[in-house]
């Protein structure tokens, strides 16, 4: 679905390696996390809190909140508003974020 522009049209942005769900991916400096996720070939990066349906980056400008991911352990981060950094760990967000409070059963 998404392809990067041919190399000759790109600036010579250096590669930045991030981890997506534990697997290395070569993003480019200046990519947003959402752009890197799309370039990695995955259409969805989370499941919704309400219905559990898959969602992926949509507006790419901070409005739709559909690109929420866990970045370096912090949940509910808008992937389109965060730039990739070397070694960054990006994880699929499943449902609502965890409050960190353990509920007794």
């Amino acid at each position, binding site marked *: 679905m998404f392809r990067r522009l041919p190399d000759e049209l790109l600036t010579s942005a250096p590669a930045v390696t991030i981890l997506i769900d534990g697997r290395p991916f070569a993003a480019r400096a200046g990519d947003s996390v959402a752009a890197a996720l799309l370039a990695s070939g995955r259409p969805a990066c989370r499941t919704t*809190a309400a219905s559990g349906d898959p969602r992926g980056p949509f507006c790419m400008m901070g409005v739709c909140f559909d690109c929420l991911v866990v970045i370096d352990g912090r949940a509910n981060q808008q992937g389109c508003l965060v730039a990739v950094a070397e070694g960054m760990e990006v994880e699929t967000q499943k449902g*609502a*974020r*965890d*409050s*960190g*409070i353990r*509920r*007794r059963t």
Partner: protein
Amino acid sequence: MGGGAQFDVAVIGGGLVGGAIAFGLRALGPRLLLLDEGDQAFRAARGNFGLVWVQGKGAGLPRYGAWTQRSRREWPRFAAEVFDASGLDVALSQRGGIHLCLDPRELEARAAALAALVDQPGFERYDYEVLDRNALAKQLPGLGIDVAGGTWCSLDGHCNPLRLLHGLHLALQRAGCVLRPQHPVARITPRADRFDVATPAGTFTAERVVVAAGLGSVKLAPMVGLAAPLRPQKGQVIALERMRPFLPLPLSTLRQTDDGTVLIGDSQEEGGLDETVALPVLAAMAARAVRAFPALRAAHVNRTWAALRVMSPDGFPIYAQSAAHPGAFLAACHSGVTLAAVHAEVLAPAIAAGSLPPSLAPFSPRRFDVPQAA
């Protein structure tokens, strides 16, 4: 009923009070009219917190404590009726609730106030517990270490108030009642056999009118010989992002909704018809919430809003039937969610029957006519 009027009953106000009364009258079908100012109204029903709450209510008027407890008992049946009539689940949960006290002095004052409340002559007593921090933490995982404690009452609960408002409106539509949003009432004129209710979009006639227009009732009630000395009291609410369920019970100032959103709301501000949010108050609310549950420090704020409570001079509801125009009724209160069940199940049938029961006499606005002692 009969005669020449278009409607048997016109309910003025489509918020939770008017909506619940109309819901209780929905068997009238096309003979019931609900007039509503529209979304530009100061609408408490769109901004409230959603508690179905008992503990702490009724100091100074035991009858209000009993009325509140009756509504709590009616709530499960009412919620089931709303579901049957609208298909919407209002997410009623009545498994108890907690009033949190951050400081020891707060807890002391709260315990004394509750003891005095249930000891009032004629008060319908209920059980509650004063819990210290460690006892409370057993019920509330994640509770902050420097919380003094709180009071727990098994009668408290919460629901989804927006779904309730929506459900009431849907049920009325499905029952064939006539809903007219964007119809602010400019004038009610009592006639010999009916009331003329004038709006910019035309005049409607009804044999009975119920003024349930929240703060709008201040202007409308005197047109039918009733007094509605109501004032706005601002409450601000913070909505955090959705989180996985962690809070098993609602607190009076913090609750997690059925879909995971955490709501924080504990401001009470006197300042007229002002619905603006203010950062200093929101910051204080957020700080208290973080002290209660330190993990909330990391949570995002999704929205904030303010809404105006409909307050009477003594804080209790006002129900009245006009002596001059007995077909006219007034209902006003700030507990539109908690009391929705009795408004639908008790107040509405009384209005249909033509008079309010003696048990509602303590809520007459005539109580405000007593001259103040010097």
